[in-house]
């Protein structure tokens, strides 16, 4: 009797994702854009919940909302962005870009809608155990590589931002 919930939430999240995403692309107030991006991420987490991937959803919130958005806000606050209306707030290439993107996007979306297989949430017990299992057995080497990548990013970021005079 609750099976109307899933499509309902799906619609809600889809609306949030697309609306907020479009706003991020088009808006001019950068803090608003950051916040809306956070909203997009949150709705994306909802999508993951719908797909029965609650661990992924929580990671999504933890990393994107909790960390990446903050970092971006950091960037926003450090780089004082003056919304002075440059003559072209968009690139000159906007029409081209729009055309190309549309030409790609429409067929892809059309193609995507042609998958009719239903999504049924995964088995009981959630995706934590399976995820951990496959992450630490089959994908342990990529896992290590990812850790190395993170370390490199850490060091690189520090080196880039570090001022030389101190």
């Amino acid at each position, binding site marked *: 009797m609750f099976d109307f919930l899933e499509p309902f939430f799906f619609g809600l999240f889809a609306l949030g994702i697309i609306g907020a995403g479009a706003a991020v692309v088009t808006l001019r107030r950068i803090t608003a854009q950051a916040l809306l991006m956070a909203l997009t991420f949150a709705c994306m987490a909802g999508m993951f919940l719908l797909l029965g991937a609650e661990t992924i959803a929580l990671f999504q919130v933890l990393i994107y909302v909790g960390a990446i958005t903050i970092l971006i806000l950091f960037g926003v606050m450090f780089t004082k962005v003056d919304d002075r209306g440059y003559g072209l707030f968009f690139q000159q290439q906007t029409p081209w870009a729009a055309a*190309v993107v549309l030409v790609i996007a429409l067929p*892809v979306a059309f193609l995507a809608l042609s998958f009719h297989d239903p999504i049924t949430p995964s088995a009981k017990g959630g995706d934590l155990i399976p995820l951990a299992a496959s992450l630490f057995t089959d994908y342990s080497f990529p896992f290590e590589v990812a850790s190395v990548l993170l370390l490199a990013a850490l060091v690189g970021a520090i080196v880039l931002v570090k001022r030389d005079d101190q």
Partner: protein
Amino acid sequence: MIANAWLIPGLPLAAFLMNVSFGRRWLGRWTGTIATAAVGVSAIIAIGIFFEVRAGALRTVVPLYNFMTVGDFHIDVAALIDPLSTAMLLVVTIVSFFIHVYAIGYMAHDRGFWRFFSWFPLFVFAMLILVMADNYLVMFVGWEGVGLCSYLLIGFWFERPEPAGAAKKAFVMNRIGDWGFMVGMITTFLVFGSMNFVDVFDRVARNPPAQGVLSLICLAFFLGATGKSAQLPLYSWLPDAMEGPTPVSALIHAATMVTAGVYLVARSTPLFDAAGPVLAGVAGVGALTAIFAATIALVQFDIKRVMAYSTVSQLGYMFLALGVGAPIAAMFHLITHAFFKALLFLGSGSVIHGFGDVQDMRRMGGLRSKMPLTYWTMVIAGGALAALPPLAGFWSKDEILGSAFKNGYPILWVVGVFTGGLTAFYITRAIWLTFHGVPRDRHLFDHAHESPRVMTVPLLVLAAGSILVGFIGFPPDNGFIHSFIRPAVETGTGSAAVEAGTNWLEFLTFAAISTAVGILGILLGLSMYSRGRPDPAAVSRAAGPYYDVLVNKYYVDELYDRRFVDVAKAFAGAAWAFDIHIIDGLVNRLGWAIKLSGGGLRRAQTGIVGNYALSIVGGLLLILIVYGGYATGWLHR
């Protein structure tokens, strides 16, 4: 023990790696100890292997690893352990060990100590590879290795111009020989489809190829041998090589490396036997070199150069033996020569070391009282060189001469005997000028001193060797060495099948003749330099132009300079012009074209990120189009 024969070259290699990596910073003085210890252990293993071979392990192939595999062409790096290689192993490892010990004392005050003791074990390693190789390619690797080490060590004091030049000279001349070796090697492979000694010799025995081909191969190999063993016409690098430190001269340019050519020919005995006429050439070249070098040695005043020329002439004896088909005698002389010539060099090195690094005998004299140990060991070595019975050189040289006569080369026999006389003369002269008479340089004489024990002990050991080693060839033609090596060089057809059993009568006649000539030479030398009857100066004046020719070493270097070096220089100039005008011209044109096109293309680099991103997305679009085309299938047609 044979199973881990790979340890023999392995240990010196390890020592080399260790010293060259950590020598400069940390090891310092320890490098000498490390290298010496490594070589010593190798020597012990070699002795163990010797006993096993003597117990009857006539031909063992110890595979190390697969060096290269091209199609069905395999080069396995394997150690071929047979009497021949075992004998060489013993000589190389033992003599090297003592020279290492000696060098610790000799190089003690040198800044490049660690460098020296990095190259030294490296040389030993290369030499052992050369000796233990079971095919020509690996042998060639060792061959080049020893060449390289010889270059490095001759030019050890590269700050001074002479050693650098001598090193270059040695290297270039060796290159000529190496070219010969390569030609021989490649031809061998083309003819026999293998480079493995065993296979090649089997094929030769079963169905020998055309005489001409064999002669070509043998000539090529002999060219290589002349290069490495300083025979005519490629000998002139060896005297210059004396610019290097004395232990280097002793080890590389007297005892081991220069015998590599002898070893190569002895190793290829079946080939050379099959190619008859070449052997005669080998013998001729050997005899010629022997007398040629001996005559030059008569008039040299640099003590080390005398030794160098005597080395050349002794090597000539060995080739003479090989040529007359007595490889066993050649190996025998190789072994004995390794001992007493190393001793001579170390002795002269000890003199130089104790006499303030002066090499000119005209400034020496009367040193006997100052350095008795050196003196007596030198006397022993000189006796061995002059083939006085019962010292080592006596047995081996007489065997060479005897087999030369018996195998039908009486002229060469005469030459050899005469050369023996010359040898006796110049060694007497050298020892007398050095140790007897009145000191001609008071100042240096007063500061002269006997060398430290670390240097004299090797002298004593080698002196004992020079006395005793000869008896491995006793009784003549039937001694231990013969029965030991014969299986390795036995080919049935070849003249190496010298008849076993001693013919005392003819032996004694030959021995008497050559010894008489030798003693004559000695007496002449004594009378000339002790009594001054006839006075050397007078003799030289009387000899006039001949004396000059000898002093100037037959003007060979000048000849080479004019004949070859200038030609090479001219050719190099032409090549340089070609490089400058044609090749560089082309390159410049190319660069110019690229510059032009780049200038056009750089318009695309707008520096605006968006454009780059757009181009990326455009690429995605293209991919999608192609993919869709294949998916829908209208791109197939």
